[in-house]
């Protein structure tokens, strides 16, 4: 039961960084990739409907730790107090900036919220990634399970590099996501960003795996580190071949295996104590009783499949690509009068409405004729040769 809950916590972190990972990537990339207001609206619009649901994975990971491993939750949140504070501020700013930028009237205020979104989206994975690295690297914990160090003890080189690794993967993951979810200019910029980021990400992941070996000892790579490196390297040819769908799958795998490797390196510990192995927090010395774990297991087994189903459905509903219709997509031409030109004209009809800031560049959506959905093309881009300098 205790092992099962350690796996659950790992899965929740994987779910969080897999889903929010591209939200963070998109949040960072809206600045360089969305060159004007419309471009940034397109970029942010890709995560508009889903980021809030994705964030709940973190909420459940934290609450799940609280319930299943109270000793871990108590030690981690109080030891990493400055990290938690910074992460909370960044999470707050990130959440409201997406919301507020769609509502504020002046262009200047909108810019402020967009820059806030960019900074916050970078800080969250950096801080939380550093935290995960520090769990493994070890911080001073006494026999009562309480932190005894200071800020310097939390900031080891390895921990910081773990944060950098997670952040870089988020960037790559976000670029791959934008490659899947956008059209037109933004799409081309996302693809060229992917081509730039992919080799960097692969190198960072390799360096991370190597540093992990140095930091925790041992010579051989574990299977999950091997898979993480394999996935990170696979991203490179995939983005150069323009295979957006597979590239996104590979960035997802990279993120998943990096997170899994951190947790498996930890197990059976949950927080390494730098004051000696006797003070390590482990799954068994921090776990809640059998009964509460059993209750939680029932709830999880019943609810998680339901949650996954409707969350997947929401991704399906918002599968339509966003972005300018200026470059026609290869594939079947849209039927009827809804040619791209019509789309632009019809889109401007809605311009006086301050609404739809996030999605307006997508053009109008006529549910009856389904014009935009056809216009937008299928979820996976038709393959095309890489276009440089897009």
């Amino acid at each position, binding site marked *: 039961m205790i092992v099962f809950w350690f796996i659950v916590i790992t899965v929740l972190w994987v779910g969080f960084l897999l889903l929010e990972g591209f939200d963070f990537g998109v949040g960072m990339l809206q600045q360089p990739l969305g060159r004007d207001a419309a471009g940034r609206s397109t970029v942010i619009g890709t995560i508009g*409907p*889903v*980021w*809030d*649901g994705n964030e*709940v994975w*973190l*909420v459940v990971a*934290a*609450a*799940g*730790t*609280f*319930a*299943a*491993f*109270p000793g871990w*939750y*108590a*030690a981690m*949140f*109080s030891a990493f*107090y400055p990290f*938690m*504070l910074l*992460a*909370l*501020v960044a999470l*707050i700013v990130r959440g*409201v900036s*997406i919301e507020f930028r*769609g*509502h504020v*009237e002046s262009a200047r205020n909108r810019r402020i919220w967009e820059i806030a979104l960019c900074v916050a989206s970078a800080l969250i994975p950096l801080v939380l990634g550093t935290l995960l690295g520090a769990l493994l690297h070890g911080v001073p914990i006494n026999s009562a399970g*309480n932190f*005894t160090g200071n800020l310097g003890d939390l900031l080891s080189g390895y921990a910081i590099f773990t944060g950098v690794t997670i952040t870089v993967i988020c960037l790559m993951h976000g670029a791959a996501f934008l490659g899947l979810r956008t059209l037109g200019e933004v799409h081309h910029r996302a693809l060229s960003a992917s081509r730039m980021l992919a080799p960097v990400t692969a190198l960072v992941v390799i360096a991370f795996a190597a540093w992990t070996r140095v930091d925790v000892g041992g010579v051989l790579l574990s299977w999950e580190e091997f898979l993480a490196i394999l996935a990170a390297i696979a991203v490179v040819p995939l983005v150069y071949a323009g295979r957006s769908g597979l590239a996104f799958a590979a960035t997802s795998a990279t993120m998943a295996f990096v997170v899994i490797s951190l947790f498996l390196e930890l197990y059976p510990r949950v927080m390494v104590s730098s004051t000696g192995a006797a003070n390590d927090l482990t799954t068994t010395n921090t776990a*809640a*009783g059998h*009964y*509460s774990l059993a209750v*939680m297991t029932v*709830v*999880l087994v019943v*609810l*998680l499949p339901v*949650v996954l189903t*409707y*969350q997947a459905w*929401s991704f399906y*509903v*918002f599968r*339509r690509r966003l972005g300018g219709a200026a470059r026609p997509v290869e594939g079947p031409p849209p039927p009827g009068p809804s040619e791209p030109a019509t789309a632009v004209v019809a889109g401007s009809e809605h311009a006086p*409405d301050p*609404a*739809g800031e*996030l999605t*307006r560049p997508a053009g109008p*959506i006529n*549910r*009856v004729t389904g014009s935009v959905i056809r216009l937008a093309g299928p979820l996976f881009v038709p393959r095309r040769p890489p276009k440089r300098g897009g």
Partner: protein
Amino acid sequence: MSVDLARVQFASTSIYHFLFVPLTIGLALLTAVLQTAWYRTQRPEYLRLTRFFGALLVINVAVGVVTGLVQEFQFGMNWSQYSRFVGSVFGAPLAMEGLAAFFLESTFLGLWIFGWNRLSRRVHLATIWAVAIGGILSAAFIMAANSWMQHPVGYKISNGRAELTDIGAVLTSQVFLRGFIHVVFAALITGAGVMLGVSAWHLRKRSSPEVFTRSAGIAIYVLVPATLLNMLIGSELGVTEGRFQPVKIAAAEAQWNTCQPCSFSVFQIGGGKNDETPTQILEVPHLLSLLATNHWNGKVIGLNQLQAQYSQQYGPGNYIPNVFIQYWSMRVMAYLAGLILLIALWGLWRRGRLSESRWFLRVAIWSIPLPFLVNTAGWVLTENGRQPWIVQGLQKTQNAASPSVGTATIITSLVVFLLLYGVLALVDWGLMVRYARKELAPAGTQPDAEAPLPEPSY
């Protein structure tokens, strides 16, 4: 010192968070009702109202969600001893809240906001109901967790920690069931109060009176029964708490010595710690007996007697919360709730000619701030009344804080949160005022359901 600062931080961030929680739970329900009305009648005014109040909902949900994160993290950050002690019992409802409520609320809110043109009318209606149900579920789980702190049940103490032994007992505790219903009705009153106030503002300005008369009417029809019922439920909750937490109720009346029957003072001067014989003004005989015990001649044990009893039971210490705060938070809650009821009843009387009732419209705008004050006072009453305990009878607040977190750290985080929350409040308030004062889009832009709708305000 650091315990006090941690308390200030928890209290201030909770109060702030709970400005947004009841508003969004209430508005989600009312928006769902408006959209259902549109779905069934096809009348465009209901669609316009759905959009209008939906926009107010969406602005506030964002702040409610992110400030909730602070609450969840804060247990571990500032109250690690508490977290270790109660995690097995208290963490379970929090995790269930995330799984059952937050996923539902967040995912379907995204679907609702962006799904106007992508989902069928029926499915789109279902999404706002899912949001509303998610909100109510989240209230259920968080109230289960909170009620356990007021009245711990279904646990055993092993290795110095509370271990869950009976989840059924936690989820059927009287304090929980009454507290949960009390909070859901409070949320409904908050949403309806804002709806009435905003509608009244527009009716005064004569903007779209035919539409805002409807929303004002709906709000009044929700407010009258909800406020009446919630007063009864609150009074029942008071009796229940009086049984399990007699200090809380005795302190709310500044009742230092046992009485039978007990009168209720409408207000008084003094009555605090060093003044056990306050000047009571306007005493209502038997009312305290009735409120605290449901009996005409019920006995209310005084604070001095309870202090003696607890000192014997739990060892020496001060077992009396701040009486001044208890006494006045109870009265602010009850009296302002009475004002809300009066406004709603006035509206009920003037229904059918609301738009001509200038005085009513002027006063009805006050139904916007009143529920927030009532909610805050209610929480102060129930949480301050639990002191000095963090978990009634099991753990004291002073033993619950994080040993590794120093005063300077908490001061830093307190200042950071206050500044950040201040900025959020200003922006949110500015947006609310702008959106609430916005004139409704003319009916012509909202044609029949077959035509493409403009993207929603998001």
